[in-house]
C-alpha cells in the first residue's frame, strides 16, 4: 500500500500544519511516512504546499509525481494540481463547479461553519476531516491524538472540532460534484 497526498493553499492557511497532523496520524496508524514541504519561490510568493507519502514499506521518493489525494485550499492550488491527482480532491465548494478533474471532487463549505465563525481560520483542519472520511487510510481517533501531540495546550480542542466538522460534512450522503 502506498498513498500519496498533496496539500496546497496560501501561506498562513496551515498547509504545512495539516500535513504534519496527517503525517503524525499515519505514524500512529503504523505506517511509514515522509512529509516534504515546498520551500521554493512559490512559497515566498504566497502559496505553499506539502507532499505526504504514506506506505506500509520503506518509502523511495518523497517527491510526488501523481497523487492519490489533493487538499486544495485555494483556487490557484486546485488549478495547479488537479491534473496530477487520480483519486480524490477535497476543496472549497465554491471552487468545484467546472473543476474538470478526473478525480472525485468533494466541495466543503468552509464559510459558515456550524452556523457561525467558530472555525474561522481552520479550513485546513476541516479539509483534513473531510479527507480522512473519504479515504481509508486514517482513523479519526489517531488524527485527534496526533493533534493533541503536536499542538500547544488548549489549542487541540478547537482543531479537533474542525476536523470532526469536516468529517461530518464529507459524509458519503453529501452531494458530490465531479
Amino acid at each position, binding site marked *: 500500500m502506498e498513498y500519496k497526498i498533496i496539500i496546497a493553499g496560501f501561506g498562513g492557511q496551515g498547509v504545512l500544519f495539516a500535513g*504534519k497532523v496527517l*503525517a*503524525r496520524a499515519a*505514524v500512529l496508524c503504523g505506517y*511509514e*511516512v*515522509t*512529509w*516534504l*514541504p515546498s*520551500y*521554493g*519561490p512559490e512559497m515566498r510568493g504566497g502559496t505553499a504546499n506539502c507532499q505526504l507519502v504514506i506506505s506500509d514499506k*520503506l*518509502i*523511495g*521518493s*518523497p*517527491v510526488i*509525481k501523481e497523487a492519490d489525494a489533493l487538499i486544495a485550499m485555494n483556487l490557484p492550488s486546485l488549478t495547479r494540481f488537479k491534473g496530477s491527482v487520480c483519486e480524490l480532491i477535497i476543496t472549497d465548494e465554491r471552487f468545484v463547479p467546472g473543476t474538470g478533474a478526473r478525480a472525485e471532487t468533494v466541495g466543503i463549505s468552509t464559510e459558515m461553519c456550524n452556523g457561525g465563525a467558530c472555525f474561522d481560520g481552520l479550513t485546513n483542519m476541516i479539509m483534513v476531516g473531510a479527507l480522512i472520511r473519504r479515504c481509508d487510510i486514517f482513523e479519526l481517533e489517531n488524527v485527534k491524538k496526533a493533534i493533541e501531540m503536536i499542538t500547544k495546550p488548549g489549542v487541540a480542542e478547537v482543531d479537533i472540532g474542525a476536523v470532526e466538522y469536516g468529517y461530518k460534512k464529507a459524509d458519503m450522503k453529501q452531494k458530490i460534484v465531479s
Partner: protein
Amino acid sequence: MKELMKGNEAIAAGAIHAGVKCFFGYPITPQTELAAYMAKHLPKSGGVFLQAESEVSAINMVYGASSAGFRAMTSSSSPGVSLKQEGISFLAAADLPCVIVNVMRGGPGLGGIQPSQADYFQAVKGGGHGDYRLIVLAPGNVAEMAEMTVKAFDLADKWRIPVMILTDGVLGQMMETVDMDSLPERKYYDKEWAVTGRSGRAHKNIVKTLHLDAEELEKIVLEREEKYRRIECEEADAEEYRADDADIIVTAYGITSRIAKAAVDRARESGVRVGVVRPKTLYPFPSEFYNKGYKKILCVEMSTGQMVEDVKLAVKCGVPVEFYGRTGGMIPGEDEIYERIMMMAKEDAK
C-alpha cells in the same frame, strides 16, 4: 520513541547526542532549521550556539573551538560552504576534528534553493587548497542523518580530521521518523594535543598550519597522506540492496539512492536482475563494492556527473559505467531511472 523530524533537525539532535559543545553558523536555505534547532536546544545541554556574522567567520570559530578540544560544528548550504573552503583547508592542515554539514542546493553561483548533489567534487576532491582530504558521509534517510552525525564526530576525533556530512535539500527539509533512543553512544578520545593551557606540561601545544621549511612541510603532508591511506582501508562503507544476483547495478547516494531503490524494485518485477550500491562514505570511496562481477553500472546523481568518475576509477574501466543525472534543483523520477534500467537490460539481451 519514534519522533517525526526534519532531516536538518535530526542532524542537530544527533550532534547534541554526540556531545557537540559549539555550533557556529549563518542562515541559508535549505539548511536553516539545523541552526534554529541548535539555537533552541544546544544551550540547554551546556553548549554554545552562535550565529556568526558570516560563513567565513563561522568556520574559523570552529577552528578555534576545535583547537581548544571541544566538539565543534558548522552547517551551511552550497554557496555558504564555498565561502568556508579556506577555513576547511586550514582545519585539515591543523589536523583538527570537526563536523561540517552541507545541505546542497543547485549551483554554481547562487544557483537556486532546490536540492542538488553538485558539490560532490568540492567535498570529496577538496574545495580548498593543498593536499588534503575530508571524510565525507552521505546519509540516505532522516534517521541516518542523526546516526551519521554521531559517527561523524567519532570519526573526526578518532582520525583528527574534519568530517563533512554531504546531504541535500530534500533530506534536509523532509520529515520522517527517527528513533532517538536507538542512536549509538558517542565515543571518547584523548585530546592531549588540544590548546588548553600549559598546566605543568613539559611541552607547549601549538596548533598551526604555517611551515616555511619545505622539507618539514613535505614530511607533515606525507604523514597525513599515510593517515588517509589508513582511513581508506578502514572506513569505506556502502549499502547493497538486492545486489546478490544482480547483473546491473544502479549506484547513487543520498536522496537519489532511495529513488533508485524504488526503480530497482519495479525493474525486478519486470524480471531484470538489478540491484543498488549506495555509498555511505564518499571519501573514502567504497570501491570494492563495485567489483563483484556486475556486468553494467548506472550511476544516478543530481548533477551533471561527478561521483560517476569515482565509480569508473573503482572498476578500472573493467565494467561499462553509464550515467543519468538531473541538475539545477531537479530530482530524477523513479520512472526515469526505471526506463534507463530497462534500456540497459534490453541492450544486454541483444
